[in-house]
């Protein structure tokens, strides 16, 4: 029973981190299509960092750093150059996918896998201490958004940037911080993934960033609801793994659950009313 619980939480951990990044970015008005790229960059940085320094925590730091660097590109393109957020997101995902494989071949002469990463060893029930941080990410973000001055500013620039400007808030600076923070949070999720699987392999995030984005929307941009959505999607995946071989439901159908639920949520009125008002709109 308890190993079922921990399996569930281990599957949920990358979703929880990436979705926290998604909520932070989107509540500030910046579309979080890049979560997939942040996760992959985080996994890559963590694997290389841990291998280079023999220290799992330094690996985690490197993963967060790599993902934050990608987030900085996203922020520079969309905020400094006012580039379209959706196109930039698609391009950055492609960039991270290509660049990680390119560097992997340069450093380890392999276009598929890094060498084995020891990381936190067996790492306990949750795989690693990072898992506990992942569980805290969304509750902490709830506190940040609901209870702090910075959180209020994030919500202000996402809902009414003109009003925020009038109130003396620098919209661009708050959005920069929110995007960098979203990269760092998703990078933590990527680091968990690489250290949990003890390696980096190309494309290892396999759409997890998009599932996290679906969780953000299904959770109506609210941190706690989003945590619930992540746990729900992870539960479906855990069940699928447990049922494998019994052929109860084809795996393709459980893979559909997050996306089908998100489309249904969007198609009903509730999903529409909850999106941050300035989401995706360039500030002019």
């Amino acid at each position, binding site marked *: 029973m308890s190993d079922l619980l921990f399996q569930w939480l281990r599957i949920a951990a990358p979703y929880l981190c990436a979705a926290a990044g998604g909520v932070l970015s989107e509540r500030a008005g910046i*579309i979080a*299509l890049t979560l997939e790229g942040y996760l992959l960059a985080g996994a890559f940085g963590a694997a290389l960092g841990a291998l280079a320094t023999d220290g799992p925590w330094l690996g985690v730091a490197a993963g967060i750093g790599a993902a934050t660097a990608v987030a900085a*590109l996203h922020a520079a*393109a969309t905020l400094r*150059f*006012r*580039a*379209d957020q*959706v*196109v*930039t997101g*698609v*391009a*950055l995902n*492609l*960039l991270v*996918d*290509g*660049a990680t*494989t*390119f560097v992997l*071949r*340069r450093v380890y002469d392999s*276009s598929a896998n890094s060498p084995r990463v020891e990381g936190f060893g067996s790492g306990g029930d949750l795989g690693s201490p990072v898992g506990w941080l992942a569980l805290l990410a969304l509750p902490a973000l709830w506190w940040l958004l609901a209870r702090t001055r910075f959180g209020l500013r994030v919500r202000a620039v996402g809902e009414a940037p003109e009003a925020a400007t009038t109130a003396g808030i620098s919209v661009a600076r708050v959005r920069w911080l929110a995007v960098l923070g979203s990269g760092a949070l998703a990078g933590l999720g990527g680091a968990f993934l690489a250290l949990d699987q003890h390696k980096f392999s190309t494309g290892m995030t396999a*759409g997890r960033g*998009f599932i996290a*984005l*679906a969780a953000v*929307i299904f959770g109506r941009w609210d941190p706690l609801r989003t945590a619930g959505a992540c746990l729900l999607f992870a539960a479906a995946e855990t069940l699928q793994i447990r049922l494998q071989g019994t052929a109860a439901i*084809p795996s*393709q*159908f459980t*893979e*559909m659950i*997050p*996306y*089908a639920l*998100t*489309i249904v949520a*969007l*198609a*009903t*009125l509730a*999903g*529409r009313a909850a*999106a941050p008002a300035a989401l*995706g709109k*360039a500030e002019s």
Partner: protein
Amino acid sequence: MSRPPGPRWAEALLPPLVALAIALVVGDLLILTFGQSPRIVWGVLLEGTWGNAYGMGQVLYKATTLTCTGLAVAVALRAGLFNIAAESQLAAGGFGAAMAGLALPAGAPAILAVPFCLGAAMTAGAIVGAVPGGLKAKAGANEVIVTICLNFLVLALLNWAVAEHLHVPDSLHTATIRAGGLPRLADVHAAFRGSAGNATVLVAVAAIVATWWGLFRTPGGYALRAVGLSPAAAEYGGVSLGRTWFRALVWSGALAGLGGVNYVLGYKRYYEEGFGFGAGFLGIAVALVGRNHPVGVGIAALLFATLSQGGLAVNALVPKQMMDVLQAVVILAVVASVPEVRRLVAQAVPRRP
């Protein structure tokens, strides 16, 4: 309107040219990290793509799919909508063509079989396009998120159908179609032997012309562009937003679906899981670099196809993933320089009183 032609051309052409220059510099740096000479690598790239018939056939093949997905994204963008589902519409189109080709009796005359299969491909893509179109028109659901989700749903569904019901044992592809196949370039001239190039390239050219006609010479295309430029003004002028959005996404899906013909009717003559290789996502880049103009889309498709095929040609010297990086650099440079160029052009040209 009242803007002089010179700066309009500058506004359209400068961003892609700037992007290419930046990509060349980044490419040089990446090549140098592998200790290779940029001149040699670029030379090998050109030789392996436009230097021989096989390379040209491969570039034309890849450009054909990219033209269709690029047109799909461009049509939606002209209406102010993002179609990120070109990837799954492409797959659905290929699936539809294969099902049509399998349903036909062997030896069915090509003059009937080919249009039937083309129609099936477009219909399958259009059905996938109708979902975000309908949800946008009826419920106001954001088409970006719906199309992202739809990619995963449709691909999972097709994978299930092929894996559980339609596959040839020990493979992930269907049986070979009985009718509706298109001639390969190698059938026309032996020098193209081995390349995937085929007659679908003519379909793509026809799609460019038809899309241009539809967008710029028909009332429906006018309404579509009006909605894209200013939804409020278009609605005030009597255009139904919901209906226009729906039509735009249905046409967009049909164009992406048409791209599936290239692999299924032209190249392999069966549907195979994952045959699209990201061509749907790259369609976004193609539309962007082609500035949402059908002719520009065709040129951009050739550019991206050259990069992609060129990556294979230079893979022994530098990893082919370098081309993914360069493609991303081109997209980022274009998308970031468009507003900047627009601002500079506006400054350079004094407004008429």
